[in-house]
């Protein structure tokens, strides 16, 4: 928490982010109808990561945090990315 920057975010920004999240959700649903098979999963994951980043950055104020907190969060995200990636080494090539 950085007290100097407390009131940087206004409702306007929250509102814009929220609209973006809705649009992205709609996109995910639309894409799932295209029946892209295993590529569909990749695209959904990609969109989900964008959504998660928006929430973290704006709603959870990560944008205004210090380096250590950001680094720690990055670690978490990398872990998830690697875990999902390794899971795909199975799902992608399974007969």
């Amino acid at each position: 928490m950085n007290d100097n920057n407390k009131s940087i975010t206004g409702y306007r920004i929250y509102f814009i982010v929220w609209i973006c999240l809705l649009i992205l959700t709609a996109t995910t649903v639309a894409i799932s109808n295209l029946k892209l098979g295993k590529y569909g999963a990749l695209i959904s994951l990609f969109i989900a990561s964008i959504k998660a980043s928006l929430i973290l950055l704006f709603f959870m104020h990560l944008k205004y945090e210090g380096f250590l907190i950001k680094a720690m969060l990055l670690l978490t995200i990398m872990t998830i990315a690697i875990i999902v990636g390794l899971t795909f080494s199975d799902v992608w090539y399974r007969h």
Partner: protein
Amino acid sequence: MTTGDREKSFYETQGRHTGILSWVLSTDHKRIGILYLTAMFSFFFVAVILGVLMRLELIAPGRTIMSATTYNAIFTVHGVIMIFLFIIPGIPSGLGNFLLPLLIGARDVAFPRINLMSWWFYITGAIVILVSLFTGGGPPDTGWTFYVPYSIKTGTNVTLAVFGVFLLGISSTLTGINFVTTIHRLRAPGMKWFRMPLFVWSLYATGWVQILATPVLGLTLLLLMSERLFGFGLFDPAKGGDPLLFEHLFWIYSHPAVYIMILPAMGAVTEIIPVFARRTIFGYKAIAFSSLAIASAGYLVWGHHMFTSGMSDIARMVFSFLTFIVAIPSGIKVFNWVASLYKGSIELVSPLLFTISFIFLFSIGGLTGLVNGALATNIFVHGTYFIVAHFHYTMFGGTAFAFFAALHYWFPKITGRMYREALAKRAWVILFTGFNVLYFPMFILGLEGMPRRYYDYLPRFQTGHFISTIGSWILATGLAIMFYNLIRSIFKGEAAGSNPWGGTTLEWTTSSPPPRENFKEIPVVTGGPYRFGKD
């Protein structure tokens, strides 16, 4: 020393509550550590009895003392208790809680109330599991791994038991958050990262594993519960689900979890070796970084539990390769320990005896892990007694022996008293003998094809099983003597003084048992943790 000039110990400082409440509502990390230790060893005791009963059933082919269904329930409960109630909280929540602030020169952990909360989650989880054994369809019979589809179909009380484990997961995560924050924020002035005792490094790495991996367990268990309650079909191929998804999710947590078990154990023995070899640790940084390396590489290998489950070939090769990589940092540690003992003036007292047997047994456990990790041999040993032997060597011979070593080593600090050394040595000899008689035959049984989780077997396996059961009695005797010695000494042991071993880390600079706030004045650190005359 007279009582007059001695500071009151934390036992004598009650805080706001009295009696039992001064314990179960205490935010003192030392009291919480003791709460954990007491609870954990009580559960351990129960699970040991279950283990001995299983061995008794297996002394001869056919039904001996219990039915097949009872056997299934008993190995499940034995596994669940040993894993989730004993060895995972184990060293970090018990000894780590007591010692972490003392080792870094702090007055408490960063979040004392969350610390207490984590104990309450632990106890609540334990009670829920206990209740699950006697309600609904009775004790779960799935094995501690709760694999689908059986865990969804069985009529036993899996849902409630899994909910209990879910609560234990919360407890473990909270401990991790607490420790990581404490190590970042509360180190005494002058204690730079590379002046921290190596036990602290291992708790740090463990803390991150607890934070990053345990939520996956929570998620997995919630999905399993909802499958049972609502039948979503996530894991059911008939509904478009994937049973392998459960195995992935389960092991994404449970493989890193083995590092929650072993890293603090490695850290603890790293404190013990320099003290009884009277020389500084060899390769401080290599040991510190290998903890981090083990913690991070530990996320990449879970697939080695699924080699025969129908994963893709690419995944099997990737996971097998990565599994071999993890052996490297573990090897680094083993070599550094041995190098630290080399040319030391070794004092062979009970903590060091347990430590050396830890290195020996853990090496057997680790090296047989490579047999499991190679694709070709895995097919041969998967699901056999070879696995049972392997994980008892790592978890029991590894973690639990290190735990016992640490318990003896820090006993005088925690209780202010000394146990009987001669008796401790005797207990160790019996324990070590019993351990190998109990588990070594299991390697051979496994290679001969004896499957695990069976209450019966073909007559040709009888010799191995018979020897193993005799071993379980020897082992139980050793445990009984060890705990008798420790418990008796809590009340009757001789006063130990603040630094009976001549240790150089900060916990030995304060009185035994330490005062409520650990140090009269927060120490200022000017050098590394292990400073002995010769170096």
